[in-house]
């Protein structure tokens, strides 16, 4: 069965390592914070200028001057730092963030990503997404494997305007964990109960299926 949003977040959380600085995008990526493994410390970077994002505030500690990149009110953990947008993107573009997780409309076999613009629809802007994908070495894209109408989002060539070129190596969809190697998607894991046939069918870009493709496991 396809993964739920919560399960997708859980699977991504398995990629966290102790001491990682992590930037989580809006949507499913944000949920990853709820599944940091016991005893592991990660620090969340929010590109509006906060390293060490904490939980949402209480009614009492709500503060208009304390928000995250999604414009939600947040708190800071002990040991957090706060800085300007230029400093924040110096961190991001200088490659200092260990892991970036973000959503997308499409990803292709060359590691291109399209996530910000659908022609003939109103364009709201790329925000920090282009900086995040250009700056990070280690990026996980989270998205559904196919659109609601069944069209694959894992393509030979992105059809939408790009957010970044050749920068994606890891994709988690609701059906599979894939890595991009040598111009192909490599199927690394499948969602519990999802057949390789279904994944093949819903993957438009070239897909390599190793002999053994384990099911994902969740603690």
């Amino acid at each position: 069965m396809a993964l739920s949003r919560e399960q997708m977040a859980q699977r991504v959380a398995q990629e966290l390592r102790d001491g990682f600085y992590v930037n989580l995008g809006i949507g499913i990526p944000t949920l990853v914070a709820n599944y940091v493994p016991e005893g592991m410390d990660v620090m969340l970077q929010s590109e509006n200028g906060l390293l060490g994002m904490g939980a949402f505030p209480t009614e009492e500690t709500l503060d208009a001057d304390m928000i995250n990149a999604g414009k939600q009110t947040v708190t800071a953990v002990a040991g957090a730092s706060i800085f300007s947008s230029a400093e924040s993107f110096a961190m991001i573009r200088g490659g200092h963030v260990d892991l970036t997780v973000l959503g997308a409309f499409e990803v292709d076999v060359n590691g291109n990503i399209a996530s910000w613009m659908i022609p003939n629809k109103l364009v709201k802007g790329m925000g920090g997404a282009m900086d995040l994908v250009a700056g990070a070495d280690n990026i996980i894209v989270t998205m559904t494997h196919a659109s609601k109408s069944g069209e694959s989002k894992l393509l030979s060539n992105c059809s939408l305007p790009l957010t970044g070129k050749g920068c994606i190596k890891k994709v988690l969809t609701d059906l599979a964990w894939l890595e991009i190697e040598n111009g192909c998607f490599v199927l690394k894991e499948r969602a519990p109960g999802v057949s390789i046939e279904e994944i093949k069918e819903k993957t438009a870009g070239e897909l390599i299926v190793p002999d053994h493709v384990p099911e994902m496991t969740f603690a």
Partner: protein
Amino acid sequence: MAGFDKVVVSYEEAMSGLEDGMTIIAGGFGLCGIPENLIAEIKRRQTKGLTVVSNNCGVDGFGLGILLEDKQIKKMIASYVGENALFEQQLLNGELEVDLTPQGTLAEKMRAGGAGIPAFYTATGVGTPVAEGKETRSFHDREYLLEESITGDFAIVKGWKADRFGNVIYRHTAQNFNPLAATAGKITVVEVEEIVEVGELEPSQIHTPGIYVDRVIQGSFEKRIEKVTVRS
């Protein structure tokens, strides 16, 4: 003599010299740390044909959004817009021009503008619509985009505390683009919650040194929150 005393007492004085067709660089991220009273003064003045450089354009009825009501903005340079219906309408009508710029590039363009760096290279935007019409160049086997700096006729900034010399500190994440905007205005106006005595701010903890600041005004702020999120 006035020396370094930059305090003005009216918002009219704070924005004096603003003219039609000028470029304004504004601090703030969403509605956080925006110079809300300086924006209101720009509305009161009815200055037209403005180019506004800011990460966002406020919301309907608040922040930079109020400058859309009388079509004061000609062009917006921002990373994320369209949180308001009026913006969308004017954009579709062709009454408003928008230059979408990646957030990190926008921040760096302001910093570069203030620092006398006319242009820099960045990997951000290579191979995307942002790269159209821009030069690319390879360094150490990677492709980068040439981006030019931004300066403004005015910079409008929201600080937390300032002294009369224009030294400013920001509160929490209300810092965001504010210190960058402050460096990039020909005339930089800072509105703050509190004006403190000269010498009260620890020198090594000042976010914006007074050399960048031309006018300081104390205001009171609504500080509207865009997305109130609390835990139970």
